[in-house]
């Protein structure tokens, strides 16, 4: 057994804050809005450094989105933050009508997505935000895997002419063990680990669960490909189809409902292009609850063990079929 790598642990919200500050220094048109959660979303530091360009609107998310739209109309580059539930829920019609239908370059960076928000409970554990945003024409939707990717994504969307949505969770996240410098491209997935038996496609921090699942499957001689797919819209269709062609099936994993998120996006591509066995790991059309994040991830089926189980079933074939002989290396 190899020595576990010492992984750097960071918080994506800190990375967001740092990226914002850098953008703010480079471009005087970057402005930031928040809704009384600047300490949590970490936009506060931008506000301290650039008070004229920071608008903490208080608890009025719908207005905040409309104000962001107005700022964008008048030449500014707005980054708007609050918790995912409020960023996409309280505001949906404003995002749709004032922002997306006008193709405005508003960047919504939402924190506290997913169930690992923990103690605050279901009202704060947003599990439908990717779905809501994905449904909007012209919207780019990204769930970065770690803090470095968060920084890249925040900077990558600065130049985007249309609206963007980036989401992260609340918790600290290890850095993905890849070589630096990182390459990040909006709309492109990265094959973290090649494999031929089954493909595990994760978005956001669920990529780490996919990696651990692949290590478990290794022990059973199942060779799993692991793909990190931070951009849910536009989806990297080529990578999905390649996985369908080259492996026996796909397991998607997201800290989000299985309805309308990454899993659904992948299902759409497969059904139209290359029907393939698919299992969607995510919240099974349910709300969350208060609890310790690790316990909740287990209770709601969002762990490496859950991913590995579905992968195993895909490799084993349809129920009743003979078990597939050990995969060749």
């Amino acid at each position, binding site marked *: 057994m190899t020595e576990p790598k010492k992984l750097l642990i960071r918080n994506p919200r800190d990375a967001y804050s740092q990226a914002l500050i850098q953008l703010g220094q480079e471009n005087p048109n970057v402005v930031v809005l928040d809704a009384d959660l600047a300490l949590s979303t970490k936009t506060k530091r931008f506000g301290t450094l650039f008070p004229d360009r920071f608008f903490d609107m208080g608890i009025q998310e719908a207005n905040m*989105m*409309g104000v962001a*739209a*107005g700022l964008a109309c*008048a030449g500014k580059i*707005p980054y708007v933050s609050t918790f995912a539930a409020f960023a996409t829920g309280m505001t949906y*019609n404003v995002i749709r*009508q*004032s922002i997306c239908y*006008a193709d405005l370059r508003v960047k919504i960076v939402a924190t506290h997505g997913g169930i690992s928000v923990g103690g605050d409970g279901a009202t704060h554990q947003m599990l439908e935000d990717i779905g809501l945003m994905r449904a909007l024409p012209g919207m780019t939707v990204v769930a970065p895997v770690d803090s470095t990717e968060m920084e890249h994504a925040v900077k990558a969307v600065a130049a985007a002419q249309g609206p963007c949505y980036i989401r992260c969770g609340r918790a600290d996240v290890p850095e993905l063990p890849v070589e630096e410098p990182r390459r990040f491209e909006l709309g492109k997935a990265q094959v973290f680990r090649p494999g031929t038996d089954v493909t595990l496609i994760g978005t956001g921090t669920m990529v780490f669960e996919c990696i651990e699942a692949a290590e478990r499957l290794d022990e059973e001689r199942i060779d799993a490909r692991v793909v990190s797919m931070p951009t849910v819209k536009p989806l990297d269709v080529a990578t999905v189809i390649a996985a369908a062609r080259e492996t026996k099936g796909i397991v998607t994993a997201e800290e989000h409902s299985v309805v309308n998120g990454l899993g659904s996006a992948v299902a759409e591509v497969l059904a139209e292009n290359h029907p393939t066995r698919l299992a969607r790991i995510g919240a099974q059309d349910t709300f969350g609850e208060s609890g310790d994040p690790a316990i909740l991830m287990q209770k709601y089926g969002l762990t490496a063990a859950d991913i590995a189980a579905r992968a195993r079933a895909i490799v084993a074939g349809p129920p009743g079929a003979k078990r597939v002989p050990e995969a060749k290396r």
Partner: protein
Amino acid sequence: MPYDDAVIHELEVKSLAARRLIIDAVHHAGSGHPGGSLSVIDILVSLYFAHLHHDPRNPDWEMRDRLILSKGHSCPAQYACLAMSGYFPIADLKTLRKAGSHLQGHPARGKTPGVEFNGGSEAQGLSGAVGMALAIRLDKRPGRVFCVLGDGECQEGQVWEAAMAAAHYKLENVTAILDRNGLETDGPTEEIMAIEPIADKWRAFGWHVIEVDGHSHRQILEALDAAKEIRGRPTILIAKTVKGKGVSFMEGSLSWHGKAPSEGEVVKATTEFDLYEKRLRQSYEEKVGVRP
């Protein structure tokens, strides 16, 4: 600055011309909102032809004033003003709501020149106005931002969020105009969800309030001028209007909120417009002592 009779008369002539275009456009579209367009038209004519700093040949002019029609369903009125100003050909008005036309059923930024912000869902325009005003102030530009609201629209929470924000940010470069015609789709506002005392509410939210007759160009313009002198807070004109104003069978009527006039109804309206045009000219000539 007092507005002389000649200027006011010109605006009344323009309002009448715009009313003809509104009725014609909605008729050709086969659907649309004549009632609210007719109640707001005198406000828009005052703005477009005697108050806004704007350049129809250059809709993106950085120094311009911006107008957001938050009560977006009344866009036939805005489209008439934009066309008459020269943002696009008047003939385009006959394509309102038709597939492929830039004249959408509710204002669409990026489609129609002169439209600053999408309209249609009520209550989002004032938020946009706040955002634009903040940007303009950051850049130290001279432009002002105008937002025209409906009274039914004032039932929506986001309007009050934006009102709160405008006052909080001391946005003296924001001026709102409330088209207080008293009616919404399902009935009078005060029966559906009472908004009175509406002037008090805006004052309580930190706005300077001026009440005007929404069909008097002079009162509207004098109030807009007064708003320019107010420091440290935004201003709202509460403009008392009549829904359907200018067409006798539409005035004060609920059924003309969202219905297109038929051929026969257009003829009736036109007859009334023609009569009014004559009276307008005669009374002006009497006023200024022109030989008939």
